[in-house]
């Protein structure tokens, strides 16, 4: 076990907004190939935490290392080129562009970084096929049904050929049937990428995650396998509002 170095580590990572400490000295590590879920009650700092990792927000203090390299001061676009992809919690596809062009942007980026050597079209169509959107390539992204827009987000993430894919509440607003195929998709993605999953839907978390990190009020409350987390009294207290005995 000790021989494998983590893909991502954060050390003492902290983000303060005015008087509010949204992320409070978080030490965190994800192993390559892992599916890691980050859960926690609303306002626990989950989205802030992953925003620090992908570079949307600068941390107040602490350090982030990716693949052994200190990326704390690196701008977001440079982190993407290293292989950190982020799919948005609130769907943010380019509504006025075609589905094809949305994904083409991601493919042309990886092609420019020489991480994709095939044709633009092959790269786009492969990401669209994996998410089941191949038949909708010419549609306007904004005209897609909500569930399909979420899939398009994932397709754009996939087309970036990430080593670490951060999915921020990907199943929010999806129907049960859509959630099921989504779960299969994440499993498939995890075969060649590490996945960091923020999720509220507990059945999805339990089905997918190898390990779970629980955040509460910006701090790591617990970390462990799904079984351990299920049995953890402190976690139950944070979620149900009961006082931990």
């Amino acid at each position: 076990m000790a021989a494998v170095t983590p893909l991502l580590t954060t050390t003492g990572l902290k983000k303060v907004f005015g008087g509010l400490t949204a992320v409070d000295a978080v030490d965190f590590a994800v192993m390559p190939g892992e599916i890691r879920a980050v859960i926690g009650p609303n306002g626990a700092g989950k989205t802030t935490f992953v925003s620090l990792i992908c570079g949307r927000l600068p941390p107040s203090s602490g350090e982030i290392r990716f693949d052994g390299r200190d990326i704390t001061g690196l701008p977001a676009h440079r982190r993407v080129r290293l292989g950190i992809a982020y799919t948005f919690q609130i769907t943010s596809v380019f509504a006025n562009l075609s589905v094809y062009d949305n994904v083409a942007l991601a493919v042309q980026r990886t092609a420019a970084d020489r991480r994709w050597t095939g044709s633009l079209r092959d790269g786009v169509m492969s990401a669209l096929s994996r998410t089941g959107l191949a038949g909708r390539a010419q549609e306007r992204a904004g005209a897609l049904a909500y569930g399909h827009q979420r899939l398009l987000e994932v397709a754009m993430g996939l087309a970036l050929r990430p080593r670490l894919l951060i999915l921020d509440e990907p199943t929010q607003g999806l129907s049960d049937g859509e959630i099921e195929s989504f779960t299969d998709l994440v499993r498939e993605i995890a075969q060649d990428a590490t996945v960091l999953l923020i999720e509220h839907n507990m059945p999805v978390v339990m089905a997918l995650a190898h390990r779970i990190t629980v955040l509460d009020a910006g701090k790591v409350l617990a970390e462990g396998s799904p079984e351990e987390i299920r049995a953890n009294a402190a976690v139950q207290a944070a979620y149900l509002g009961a006082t931990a005995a």
Partner: protein
Amino acid sequence: MKPVNTPARPLILHGAVIAVLFALNFLLPDYHHGVLARVMVLAVFAMGYNLLFGYTGLLSLGHAMFFAAGLYGAALPMVHLEWSALSSFGTGIAAGALLALAVSLLALRTTGVAFMIVTMMFAQVAYLLTLYFGEWTRGDEGLVIPQPQRHIALPGLDLDLTSPTTRYMTALVLFSAVLLATLAIVRSGFGRVLVAIRENEERTRLLGFDVFANKLAAVTLSGAICAAAGATYAILFGYAGATFASIQYSILPLLWVLLGGAATTLGPLIGVLLMYYLVDASGPLLEQYLPGWKLSSLGIVGVSLVLLVLFFPKGILGTVRERWVKWLP
């Protein structure tokens, strides 16, 4: 599977537009022939503006400075150093590109309304400089480029730019080159990134693109194209005056592009053409029917701008694309 790109139709359309403009050289009466030569040069100015405003989504209110940089960048060396037209064309473009790079390094630290104001302030500074250095620029009165200098000497070929046909054809060559370049840019990966920046900057950054660097490239390219129009204007029509650096020439490209259709390759030409004839025709009409009102054609420009924004925000070709011709670039 449907073809993802249909390169043929847009190419045929643009080729046809260029062919029609070529044919008009032989068909138009003198007055309209002269107007169209001028319109084509101003359409290049509008295309440069459109690249930034239409495709990248950056609204500049200071593009007169880039047109003027080309205008004076060409006229000053011609008048004072007796440089040839061709090398002055080069200095004009270089002046515009450098100015655009310098201004955008500062202005791009702002967005939205602040960007509009900052670009406008820089343009005002540029305008005042043309007056301040009146000894060389001759300010409002302007510089007249002597006729003998207005020719292009190529091996075995001497083009007299004061002849209407040569002037028309030179304008057409520049117009066609910039039109096809614009078409190539907007269909390239770079063009796709510019549109992505317009639509959602944050998302573009998180796809791994350096938004600032791409905007910088867009402003510089836009400035260089507008300067090419300015330099050509000075060389073809033999005049460079401070009016071209004034705020009016920052508003006009916005108006032309809005009228023709922002983010359409042919919109700028249509916008300039219609606005030119609208202003041209309205002057005499205003004088005839509202003689005491002393209304200027600038009023027409202002009223058109308000009406366009209120009722016709996508412009002519923007509306055509939305309703009928989806493949229009």
